[in-house]
């Protein structure tokens, strides 16, 4: 559920290393031989959470603040920066920030620029199996030791736009970033030898629409799952499509007195995140301030299309059913094109539900907040190449069931910024593969393990019947009774993707 605010089209003239040489020769005829190349230490393509965090980290650290940095973004960042909604409306693109991500945002001075009243922490996580009903409860102990910048808590729900807007405000405060927004990357090529003897033939050159050319000592691809930077570097990203879509929506819950709004102090409410594994995919209800919640429902493309077509009344009924009714009932309801509300109301009367074990009933859905996106698993073969580094979705796309996507990106950025700082302090060329090795070594294995776990969980719970169901239920119940293992899983949920 990461960086979906900004989607950019793959560039049209991406060149592989070979075709670039040909193109270079063609360009040479047109290039102005007298113009000096515009050389940057870091050119970051992509102004999503990962790219903005990286630039903020580099600008806020004394060692790296002398680097000449540029940001290239297709969208209008002034609109993102001025993100502002009334407290009764929430963006449908939200993320769960782990304590580590919160801590990192605090360290780079961005945390205080986020709109605090639009975020909410949650202490408890309730996960259960939709087929067998086996459950696991992660009650986050206040004494557990993992703290986040806003106080203690397992994780913090934030709108992605709130995060990017806060990062942009922090960057504006720091200054020193050459920002090229509303700028499309036309192509990326290699440089040439200059008149004063500089050999830039292995330097990436980002060509923007309008003719601007940026030479990059280090080109950072924070440009999403279809990363043009990754294509330029010739780095393959392998994986598969889940044939699932994530349906998102902003919901309003009934005020039950439990798990809802505490007037004047939204942070003190005992917020709970709910996730139920259905054979079609997990459905999650994550708390937002007040009695608002955000929905992430992973399901088949057909079901997603149906859900999006429903009237608000039927959509609300379906969400309530998803956390309460049997998978058989749900299967039937997905075959109906309308009037689910009536059907569900009748079926719920005959289904015993523990009101404290499920989220409060949904009573409203925000207009135009229902949307969906395809779910993919992608992992780049490496995060680095000569003068190239990939972060966030450009490096990995993960199933959203564990809410790790954006946090993995923040973990990448923290590691890359540290790697760049080390290189600067030791006089290394920050674009050289040798200097970037530490970043790849630190993040690749850690992300791979986490991605594997998310993927296996999805596959495990996609099974609707057969021997796997009692086995996984036994597993879930067993995990629930083993506190050290539960502690490990909670540390993952609270951590930044570090495995060891």
């Amino acid at each position, binding site marked *: 559920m990461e960086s979906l605010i900004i989607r950019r089209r793959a560039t049209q003239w991406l060149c592989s290393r070979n075709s670039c040489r040909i193109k270079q020769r063609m360009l040479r005829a047109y290039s102005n031989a007298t113009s000096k*190349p515009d050389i940057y230490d870091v050119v970051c393509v992509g102004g999503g959470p990962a790219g903005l965090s990286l630039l903020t980290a580099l600008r806020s650290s004394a060692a790296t603040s002398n680097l000449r940095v540029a940001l290239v973004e297709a969208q209008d960042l002034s609109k993102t920066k001025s993100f502002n909604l009334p407290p009764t409306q929430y963006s449908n693109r939200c993320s769960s920030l782990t304590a580590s991500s919160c801590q990192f945002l605090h360290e780079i001075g961005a945390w205080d620029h986020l709109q605090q009243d639009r975020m909410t922490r949650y202490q408890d996580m309730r996960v259960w199996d939709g087929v067998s009903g086996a459950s696991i409860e992660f009650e986050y102990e206040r004494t557990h030791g993992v703290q986040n910048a806003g106080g203690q808590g397992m994780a913090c729900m934030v709108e992605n736009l709130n995060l990017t807007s806060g990062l942009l405000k922090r960057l504006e405060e720091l200054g020193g970033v050459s920002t090229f927004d509303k700028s499309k990357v036309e192509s990326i090529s290699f440089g040439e030898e200059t008149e004063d003897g500089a050999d830039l033939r292995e330097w990436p050159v980002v060509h923007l629409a309008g003719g601007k050319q940026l030479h990059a000592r280090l080109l950072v691809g924070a440009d999403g799952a279809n990363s043009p930077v990754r294509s330029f570097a010739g780095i393959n990203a392998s994986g598969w499509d889940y044939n699932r879509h994530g349906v998102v929506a902003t919901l309003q819950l009934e005020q039950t007195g439990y798990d809802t709004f505490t007037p004047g102090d939204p942070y003190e409410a005992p917020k709970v995140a709910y996730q139920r594994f259905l054979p079609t995919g997990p459905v999650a209800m994550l708390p937002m301030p007040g009695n608002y919640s955000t929905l992430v429902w992973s399901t088949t493309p057909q079901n997603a299309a149906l859900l999006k077509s429903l009237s608000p009344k039927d959509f609300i009924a379906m969400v309530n059913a998803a956390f309460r009714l049997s998978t058989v009932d749900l299967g039937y309801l997905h075959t109906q094109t309308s009037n689910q509300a009536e059907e569900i109301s009748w079926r719920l009367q005959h289904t015993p539900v523990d009101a404290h074990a499920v989220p409060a009933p949904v009573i409203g859905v925000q207009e135009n907040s229902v949307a969906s996106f395809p779910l993919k698993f992608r992992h780049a073969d490496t995060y680095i190449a000569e003068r190239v580094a990939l972060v966030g979705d450009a490096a990995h796309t993960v199933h959203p069931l564990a809410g790790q996507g954006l946090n993995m990106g923040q973990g990448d950025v923290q590691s890359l910024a540290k790697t760049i700082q080390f290189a600067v302090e030791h*006089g290394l060329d920050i674009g050289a593969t040798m200097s970037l090795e530490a970043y790849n070594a630190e993040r690749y294995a850690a992300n791979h393990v986490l991605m594997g776990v998310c993927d296996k969980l999805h596959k495990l719970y996609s099974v609707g019947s057969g021997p796997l169901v009692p086995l996984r239920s036994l597993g879930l119940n067993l995990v629930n009774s083993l506190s050290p293992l539960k502690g490990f899983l909670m540390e993952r949920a609270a951590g930044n993707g570090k495995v060891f």
Partner: protein
Amino acid sequence: MKTSIARVARHTGRRITQPSATTIRHQTTSSSPLPPPHQTTTSPLPPPPAQPSSSSTLPPPPSAAQPSLPLPSGPSSPSVNPSEISHFNALASTWWDPHGSSRALHLMNPHRHDFIRSCLSSTSTPPPSTLRYLDVGCGGGIFAESAARLPTASSVTAIDPSSTILSIAKAHAARDPSLIGTGKLEYRNATIESLDKSEEGKFDVVTCFEVVEHVDDPAAFLDHCGRFVKPGGWLVLSTIARTWMSWFTTNLVAEDILGIVPKGTHDWRKYINEEEMRKHFSKRREWDSPRVMGVVYVPGVGWKEVPGSEKVGNYFFAVRKKPE
């Protein structure tokens, strides 16, 4: 660990000095009364198997063991050993390959800066805000480039007797526009003896990394390097201790058993122990504040500082020229 140590020695060492034998003998016996290597008593290891000469100096110049190869390039100076030049010329093309034969050197480079930093910060008076560096035996420029990128470096003069290697160094530096045109980094095809005397006492930091173990007369070589250090400045070097371990790793395993280093690349007898180095400089009045840092290569991880390991294998050493 074994092969890497071998590599380090093999790739950085250049025979820089070889003044006439009589001069050296005279100099070293009179002014550098270092203990003979086999009399080392402070080493925790047993005496090494092959005993070098019993003279009470730093290891003397070798006999005519080195074949006299034609000098392919380099300044026409009698102090340059043709076989060393030819040896390192052959390695030139892989100097900057991160997975090439110089990988261990690349990995060691950050430790060089950390060590220099620890030297500079050890004095009661703060070091100058900008520093002039002289890198002796710069090779492909791994250290020289990185020093020139530091905001605290006002200039880096890097010398090497091989013009072939210097052409690699220059071509690589040209790939970084911040290193050219600024005049901060200057490569010279020179030996320490051929440097202009007017530059003596002008450098804040004089470095010779992985060089002395390949020098025929290290005492004379180090004295020569020392002349270029500014009063209050530092002479910084790294090399390998002459121990059972280094004999095992760099000579027996690397050269005789595995053959990954051509036979005769290393003369184990020329390795210098840390105590010998310390003693050499303690006899010379202009030096004080000796500092040492032992490093160990951990395969898959890189170089790690291990206190005490200077007695066993690779180590850094520095002395400060007394301020005037």
